[in-house]
């Protein structure tokens, strides 16, 4: 037997022995209740203030708590705040925190922590920046109290503090909140219902949250981000590796995962057919697609061309192609999402009551000289991947020349920040999607503004629009706000800041034994029971 | 007493369809008795190797014995089962092969390769086996058997490896040993030792030996009886002495006639012909460049001073590794010499830069040994021949005309210019190479082992052609060979080389007549069949008693 023969034999023996030993060791641990969740994208950045990514916001809701919350009816409800008073001239707001609020490291939550958290939030969030233009100073007369002094009265203080979606004003310990707003925080101590298990966190693999035993939920039933955040499971695991749509469907069918936050539209047919899986619509307000023009460069530096384009972009075509499931989408003329306080329809006839022929006439009348329109198409983001193709086809039918350029989402994000001409690495059109709370308020809706260079990508600029928005910010009574919203939207449609492309919902898929999903603009994991 | 060990009766073996002939072997009958050495002799393709493999039951599936029988001590091999054949091999009959370099398993120690036979065929314990292996190693005169046991084939010389092969074959004392050209790939001196060993072992063990060869010198040296084969048929069989001196069949006569005689032919070369090329203290040293450790520098050629005159042939004779090819390649500047001068018509081309050298290259042309790799397979014969002249501005038409004339000179029909090398035999290709060299109208033609790869009969024709060309065109020629007989026929002057040095240099008659240097004498002594006078239709035993074969000290 030469050496090689001996080598192979001993290798085989070693392998066999290992297998037998291990099999006998199959130990059955006591089964703690584990909730296995597949979030809608990979959790990479853990600072919900530093980035507006929705996954970071969901992570925030797990480990942090908020002063106020927004219930299912979009009304602001107290969360950490016990009681608050507003001075008659509406320029002094003083709040008292409810008792028993503690951070994970055991220290009580104080006014100082709140002030530090709010000021860090105010530097990055759009609505926060607006609010801080009104704030003179903030102070904490007692450990469980804090007061906000306004230079001028404004009507959206509570709406800002209870803001449900991106850059949510989470409350962090002062030592963490003092980190510079443009550097990511390193410490993940919060006062929310779950504790973040930092050592088990592996980006791209999994994130782990343990139940916070000392968390004292409010009495009220849970509703949106308001109400009591009771926790019925011991541990929540986010599976960050499972992003292939077909594997997700297979995994939940086999019970290897409990919740799919946002299955792909194509998966719903299979999920509905599966008896062991139920579809739960936890975000009725859903999302709105949007098509943004680049106002700096031709052809969309001319308002008439923008309106001709809006006329051609009928929402039905987009929704049918991208979502495809009748009951999950509906056209909505409003820029601030339908059936929300400011979901007005004024000015939307340009899009709602138009057809291709009208669009072609408008385009001829606009003096469009045929310069090609560069549309950026993300290849790796299924949720909005098909919108650019539909836009290209519709615009071509309307008479535009279209150059559809494909790239991954990160290139889209980096290119839309460039102000160069479309030919030199710039762009003309890109599409995206917002969760309704981000755009249902004229102040938070990034697209509806006229700030020009300092505004959101696309840089639409219009003093008239800015004046209207400023008046809206100052208005305090509801009726006045509603009429201001109508004026803003009419103006926005008039100058064609962007084209809303319809709304849709992406309900979660949940294993039969899992109940108690909280409805709201994000995915929240309190109040969930698992058999 | 001696019932024949091996009896072959009208053996017929069929070739697969599409071969150049229907049967590899046709109705061959002969027998081998104990203590007897029978030689099967014939040119390549004569079927001698096929017969040997048939006897051992090693024929590939494509060659089937269709008639006749092969009896090993009465038992018919052709009918035997694979299992039975395995039992017989190495126990009753053994075989040794031609290429010692590749006949042993390179990744297995030599001792183990012998031990393997004992382990399979006997029930001896490890100690007994080891003793038996050491014993057979001493029988084959291998130095330090202990070290030999543990060494790998690549660590020992060709001759030693052939002795290991013989040890493997004879360790179980078979009655029949088949030797398929065992010494053809060896040096002349090593070949002599192996032949002696086989004769000695035959005397001791009484084995019947079937010896296959194409070299009549070897036949003369060791055979008791000889069978001559041509294209699968037994042409003639007789005792060695009768066959060599009175060959009956015309083919046998032709074969014997083609073997050049060892005594040089007088050529009357004028001593005062102008010198074409002279070398002074030419040397080539390969500095071994081990990265971390310095291996000794190898002196391939040292202090070589020769001269070649117009109309004459200088022979460069020596065993492999003696440096004769290195000298030739230095002269043609295929490799750059380390020292010394090469004077071509007065100019020293040893260190001349490539640009200037190119003008002088036309004057020296070379013909290589391997006919199958000397011609670019992708080019027609015509293009190969006219490539040279066209390099020096000769128009295509004129070069083609010259090529046609050369085809006639080398006796090939004109249309071969349009065909491709693969459509020609070895001998024909060598003629094309000669034509290609002559197309340059060189002053010096170098033949580097130009005929060694050819059959004896084809060899004779090419040598005759070279002679005729040398006389007709009054060329100077440098003829490199390891075969003394060929050197004797062709050369006017002979230089004998050993380990990079010229040990003897003079006119052929004096060098062959009475060699001065001890190495030259050993070389002649080792040449097989020197007791016989070849060179004409039949061979005569040389009147003077040649000196007996002494096993010169191994180099």
């Amino acid at each position, binding site marked *: 037997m030469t050496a090689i023969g001996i080598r192979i034999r001993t290798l085989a023996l070693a392998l066999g022995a290992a297998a037998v030993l291990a099999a006998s060791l199959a130990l059955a641990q006591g089964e703690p209740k584990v909730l296995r969740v597949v979030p809608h994208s990979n959790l990479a950045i853990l600072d919900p203030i530093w980035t507006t990514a929705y996954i970071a916001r969901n992570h925030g809701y797990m480990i942090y708590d908020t002063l106020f919350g927004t219930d299912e009816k979009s009304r602001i409800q107290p969360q950490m705040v016990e009681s608050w008073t507003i001075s008659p001239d509406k320029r002094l707001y003083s709040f008292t925190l409810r008792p028993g609020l503690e951070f994970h490291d055991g220290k009580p939550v104080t006014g100082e922590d709140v002030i530090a958290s709010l000021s860090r939030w105010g530097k990055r969030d759009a609505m926060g920046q607006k609010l801080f233009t009104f704030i003179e100073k903030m102070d904490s007369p007692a450990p469980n109290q804090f007061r906000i002094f306004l230079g001028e009265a404004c009507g959206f203080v509570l709406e800002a503090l209870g803001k449900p979606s991106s850059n949510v004003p989470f409350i962090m310990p002062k030592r963490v909140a003092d980190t510079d707003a443009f550097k990511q925080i390193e410490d993940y101590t919060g006062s929310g219902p779950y504790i973040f298990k930092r050592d088990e966190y592996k980006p791209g693999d999994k994130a782990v949250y343990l139940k916070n035993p000392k968390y004292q939920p409010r009495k009220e039933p849970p509703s949106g981000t308001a109400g009591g955040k009771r926790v019925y499971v011991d541990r929540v695991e986010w599976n960050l590796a499972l992003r292939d749509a077909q594997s997700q469907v297979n995994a939940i069918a086999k019970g290897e995962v409990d919740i799919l936050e946002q299955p792909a539209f194509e998966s719903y047919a299979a999920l509905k057919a599966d008896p062991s899986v139920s579809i739960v619509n936890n975000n009725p307000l859903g999302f709105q697609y949007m098509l943004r023009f680049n106002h700096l460069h031709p052809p969309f530096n001319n308002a008439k061309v923008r309106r001709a384009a809006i006329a051609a972009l009928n929402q039905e075509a987009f929704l049918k192609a991208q979502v495809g499931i009748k009951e999950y989408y509906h056209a909505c003329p409003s820029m601030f999402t339908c059936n929300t306080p400011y979901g007005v329809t004024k000015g939307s006839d340009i899009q709602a009551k138009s057809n291709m022929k009208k669009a072609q006439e408008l385009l001829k009348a606009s003096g469009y000289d045929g310069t090609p329109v560069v549309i950026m198409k993300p290849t*790796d983001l299924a949720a909005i991947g098909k919108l650019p193709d539909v836009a290209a086809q519709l615009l071509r039918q309307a008479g535009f020349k279209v150059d559809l350029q494909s790239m*991954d989402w990160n290139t889209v994000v980096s290119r839309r920040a460039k102000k160069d001409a479309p030919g030199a690495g710039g762009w003309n059109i890109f599409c995206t999607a917002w969760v309704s709370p981000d755009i249902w308020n004229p102040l938070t809706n990034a697209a509806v503004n006229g700030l020009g260079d300092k505004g959101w990508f696309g840089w639409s600029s219009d003093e008239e629009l800015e004046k209207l928005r400023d008046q809206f910010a100052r208005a305090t009574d509801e009726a006045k706000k509603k009429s201001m919203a109508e004026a803003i939207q009419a103006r926005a449609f008039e100058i064609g800041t962007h084209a809303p492309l319809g709304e849709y919902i992406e309900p979660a898929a949940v294993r039969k034994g899992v109940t108690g999903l909280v409805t709201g603009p994000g995915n929240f994991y309190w109040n969930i029971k698992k058999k | 007493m001696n019932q024949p060990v091996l009896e072959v009766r009208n053996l017929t073996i069929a070739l697969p369809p599409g071969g150049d002939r229907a049967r590899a072997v046709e109705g061959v009958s002969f027998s081998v008795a104990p203590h007897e050495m029978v030689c099967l002799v014939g040119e390549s393709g004569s079927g001698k190797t096929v017969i040997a493999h048939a006897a051992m039951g090693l024929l590939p599936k494509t060659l089937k014995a269709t008639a006749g029988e092969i009896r090993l001590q009465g038992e018919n091999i052709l009918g035997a089962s694979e299992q039975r054949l395995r039992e017989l091999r190495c126990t009753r009959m053994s075989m040794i092969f031609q290429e010692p370099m590749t006949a042993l398993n390179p990744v297995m120690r030599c001792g183990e390769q012998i031990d393997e036979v004992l382990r399979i065929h006997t029930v001896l314990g490890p100690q007994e086996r080891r003793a038996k292996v050491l014993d057979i190693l001493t029988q084959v005169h291998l130095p330090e058997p202990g070290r030999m046991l543990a060494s790998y084939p690549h660590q020992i010389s060709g001759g030693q490896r052939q002795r290991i092969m013989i040890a493997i074959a004879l360790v179980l004392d078979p009655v029949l040993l088949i030797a398929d050209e065992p010494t053809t790939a060896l040096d002349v001196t090593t070949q002599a030792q192996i032949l002696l060993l086989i004769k000695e072992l035959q005397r001791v063990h009484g084995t019947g030996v079937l010896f296959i060869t194409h*070299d009549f010198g070897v036949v003369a040296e060791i055979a008791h009886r000889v069978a001559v084969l041509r294209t699968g048929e037994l042409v003639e069989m007789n005792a060695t002495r009768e066959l060599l001196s009175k060959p009956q069949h015309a083919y046998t006569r032709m074969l014997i006639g083609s073997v050049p005689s060892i005594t040089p032919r007088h050529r009357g070369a004028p001593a005062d012909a102008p010198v074409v090329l002279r070398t002074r203290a030419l040397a080539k040293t390969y500095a071994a460049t081990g990265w971390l450790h310095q291996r000794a520098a190898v002196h391939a050629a040292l202090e070589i001073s020769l001269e070649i005159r117009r109309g004459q042939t200088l022979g460069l004779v020596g065993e492999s590794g003696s440096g004769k090819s290195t000298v030739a390649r230095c002269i043609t500047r295929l490799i750059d010499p380390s020292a010394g001068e090469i004077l071509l018509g007065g100019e020293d081309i040893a260190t001349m830069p490539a640009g200037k050298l190119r003008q002088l*290259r036309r004057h*020296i042309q070379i013909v290589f040994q391997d006919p199958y790799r000397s011609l670019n397979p992708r080019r027609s014969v015509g293009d190969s021949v006219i490539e040279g002249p066209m390099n020096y501005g000769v128009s295509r038409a004129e070069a083609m005309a010259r090529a046609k004339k050369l085809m006639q000179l080398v006796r090939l029909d004109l249309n071969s210019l349009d065909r491709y090398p693969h459509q020609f035999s070895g001998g024909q290709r060598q003629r094309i190479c000669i034509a290609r060299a002559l197309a340059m109208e060189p002053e010096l033609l170098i033949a580097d082992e130009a005929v060694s790869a050819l059959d004896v009969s084809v060899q004779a024709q090419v040598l005759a052609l070279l002679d005729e060309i040398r006389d007709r065109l009054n060329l100077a020629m440098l003829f490199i060979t390891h075969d003394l007989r060929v050197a004797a026929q062709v050369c006017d002057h002979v230089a004998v080389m050993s380990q990079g040095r010229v040990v003897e240099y003079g006119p052929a008659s004096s060098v062959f007549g009475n060699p001065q240097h001890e190495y030259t004498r050993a070389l002649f002594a080792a040449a097989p069949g020197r007791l016989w006078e070849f060179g004409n239709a039949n061979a005569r035993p040389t009147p003077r008693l040649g000196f007996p074969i002494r096993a010169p000290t191994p180099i």
Partner: protein
Amino acid sequence: MPPTAVPAEAAVAVQIKGGLWRALRGNWAVMMGGSVLALLALIAVAAPWLGTVDPTLFDPASRDLLPGAIGEITDLDGATIAHKFLMGSDGFGRDIYSRVIYGTRVSLIVGAAVALVSLLFGVSCGLAAGYIRWLDGVLMRVMDGVMAIPGILIAIALVALWKASLTTVIIAIAIPEIPRVTRLVRSLVLSIREEPYVEAAVSLGTRTLRIMFGHILPNTMAPLIVQGTYICASAILIEAILSFLGVGLPTDVPTWGNIMAEGRVQFNDFPHNVFFPGVFLALTVLAINMLGDGLRDTLDPRMSKRI
């Protein structure tokens, strides 16, 4: 090496010209592979006339139709025409049959172009490395460097980081292949350089350049052609993998990889999205590999041991 007395018939040179075509026709693998490939090339060229529609046209109404269903397609100026979806439709409502047929074009172009580019660069580097001594060391170290980086990773990085277009994909797939070709050519050149017919050419006074291109290059043709077919086959496969990973050609460009990448989302329920392009892809790569094997056995039997 002592001269071998028995002439070696083993020098298996290739029968040239007349004999070559007969040998090629005789080889089963070459015929099979060659004819399938020719058919695919024909399909690629005749794509518009094979009952196909514009592959990028889609109509949300005819989404996810099963093979053989009748649906409608809206063309550029808005008119809708009835259309029989032979291979069903994808998530956009595009006709899979047309996309697969047009996909043949892209895949064959990618395969051929990658093979050409890598052979071109590989041969020139290989010849240079084989013939020019000082260049050999430097060049081969760089080639080792490129070869050490797994090909797929280079392709992914280049395609995703440059803008995704046909040329980027071709360059990205070709770059990792170049070192392999270079090493093959270099080893061939080094062995052919030692052949007597090259030394004879030197002594005939032929200039170095003429020797390189007149004697050495022609004799590397056989192994190069075989290597070229293997590169072509693996290039088509890698293009499909790149699309699958979402870093390949833009999804509106119909390639088999794209169709499968988009279709994989509903693999269990609508396998036709992946099945038809998968079959075409496997068939093409199979045909090219068989052609490669066949060529290897006919052109250069010695080559067969170097896969």
